[in-house]
């Protein structure tokens, strides 16, 4: 299927359009109504925000992250984060913090600090910054925002934590239980064994291929 190709078609069109797009953003198509931003580094954050706020948010995120209880097993951690997990000194597992969130001008870290939820002791203002979403700090790979509160569906997998009471957390707990059952089944099946035929079966109901 190799074909002799010209190096580029319509290059002038491309270049002039890029220049247009860069300088004259179309009204209504630029920023969404409720802007939020996620940054991997304070430097990336500082492009659009105040340096100090970004640094504070980043440090708060790191503090929250380090205080969060880890996952009991590597698999639980992968299920909870989708990321590469590493063992902590206390034997638990955790994925690296990959960034933090700036909601409006108020920093919200990606890692939720469960201690911020406790009502039986004063909150640490450093790790529980006052934010527009209820005073929690949160981690990127675990948390999400719903109805004015951040939930952590994977918290049920963490060591020493009770299951968060939410529909999603129940789903996740079920998924985790299923993953554990799968892992046990794999272990009992013996090392090196491979199962096949578990992909592709859903195409039968549709026909005509998977194109769109």
């Amino acid at each position, binding site marked *: 299927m190799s074909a002799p190709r010209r190096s580029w078609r319509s290059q002038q069109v491309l270049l002039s359009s890029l220049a247009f797009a860069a300088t004259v953003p179309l009204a209504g198509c630029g920023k969404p109504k409720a802007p939020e931003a996620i940054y991997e580094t304070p430097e990336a954050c500082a492009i659009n925000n105040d340096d100090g706020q970004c640094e504070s948010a980043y440090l708060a995120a790191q503090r929250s992250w380090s205080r969060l209880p880890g996952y009991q097993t590597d698999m639980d951690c992968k299920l909870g984060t989708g990321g590469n997990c590493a063992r902590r000194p206390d034997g638990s597992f955790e994925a690296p913090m990959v960034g933090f969130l700036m909601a409006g001008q108020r920093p919200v870290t990606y890692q939720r600090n469960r201690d911020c939820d406790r009502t039986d002791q004063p909150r640490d203002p450093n790790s529980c910054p006052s934010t527009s979403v209820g005073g929690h700090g949160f981690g990127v790979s675990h948390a999400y925002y719903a109805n004015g509160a951040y939930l952590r569906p994977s918290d049920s997998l963490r060591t020493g934590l009770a299951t968060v009471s939410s529909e999603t957390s129940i789903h996740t707990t079920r998924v985790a239980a299923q993953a554990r059952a799968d892992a046990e089944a794999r272990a009992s099946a013996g090392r090196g064994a491979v199962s096949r035929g578990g*992909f592709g079966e859903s195409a039968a109901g549709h026909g005509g291929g998977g194109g769109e």
Partner: protein
Amino acid sequence: MKRHRIEARSNWREQADVFGYDYHQFGPNETDAAWRETACYSFTADEVERLHAATQTLHGMCLQMVDHVVWHPELMARFGIPAHLTQLVRGSWLHQHHNPHFLGRFDLAFAPETGAVKMLEYNADTPTTTIETAVMQWQWLQATAPERDQFNSLHEELIERFRSLAAAGRLRSSRLHLAPCPDSLEDYRHCEYYAELAAQAGLEAQLIEFKDIGLRHEDGRFVDNDDQVIEVLMKTYPWEMLAKDRFSHALPASGMQTLEPAWKLLLSNKAILPTLWEMFPDCPYLLRAQWTPDGMTDFVSKPIFSREGQNITVVRDGGIAAATEGTYGDYPLVYQDYVDLPVMDGCRPVIGSWVVGDTPAGILVREGLSDGIIVDRSACVPHFIEG
């Protein structure tokens, strides 16, 4: 944009076979072909710029939308993301560097009289007509009017995307496995084409059938026929189907990188239409779209997951004007304002506008039926740029 009636090359079928485009016939008659070169379209440079700008802007809006949806579980639910994959979808987005996207194709309505561009949908997971765009229409131009230009860098951009992802360390391996949707010649040919492009980018590419992908019990990793770990899987099998397969539960912990990544489940989803409208209600590239048809009299209903024009209903003045059958009827519907596509020689052209990575990469015109619905048999028609 103008439609021109022209003489087809007498040997276009033979030429198509040479390039692996051998799935164009859907019936015994000469006209039962999904490639049509008895006509072509011309665009002015200004029109191409408009399409390019719209594509660039819409793609950016779509990425902002994904960033919004992954943080809102109620939206994830509306997008029909299965519970066991919500973390994978969210995690793949938040770790984008290691979960890069590859390509997509907007379907756009273009009104040549006004220059207005409206997004119909975004085919961002398993877009087809890559071969028709990158190879067939380019070969047509070279054979018929090589002095002319075409808005079409798809072939080169795809190679460059493979190359740049590899160079940036964003692919987990230089060895790709490519798996087509089962029992589809079109999908198989697309995987062959991508394999060749990957090879041109210096990568090793190997085709595999989905049914042959193995789940290794020892460590939960996916392996090929030779029990070699699949580090990177490029697929033309839709995510929403993959999500229903038994092995999907093993995906999050498998470490397998997929092209497209799991977050494309959100973009190849008609639920983007009302979501984008809620986020960008003033954007002229969008048609009003809602979760319910309340207050709409001329609209199109679409299942959140549907392909190749299946289960589409067109409502005009409150009554059904057209409808297609299909296998996606069980999914929730979204509702989008009807837009009158231009009629040219009795055909209704829809612009397929490609994005590779984050770069607009060309267009392909498809001619809809009289009702304007694009289905898998809708003819692909080549184009050139005037001047």
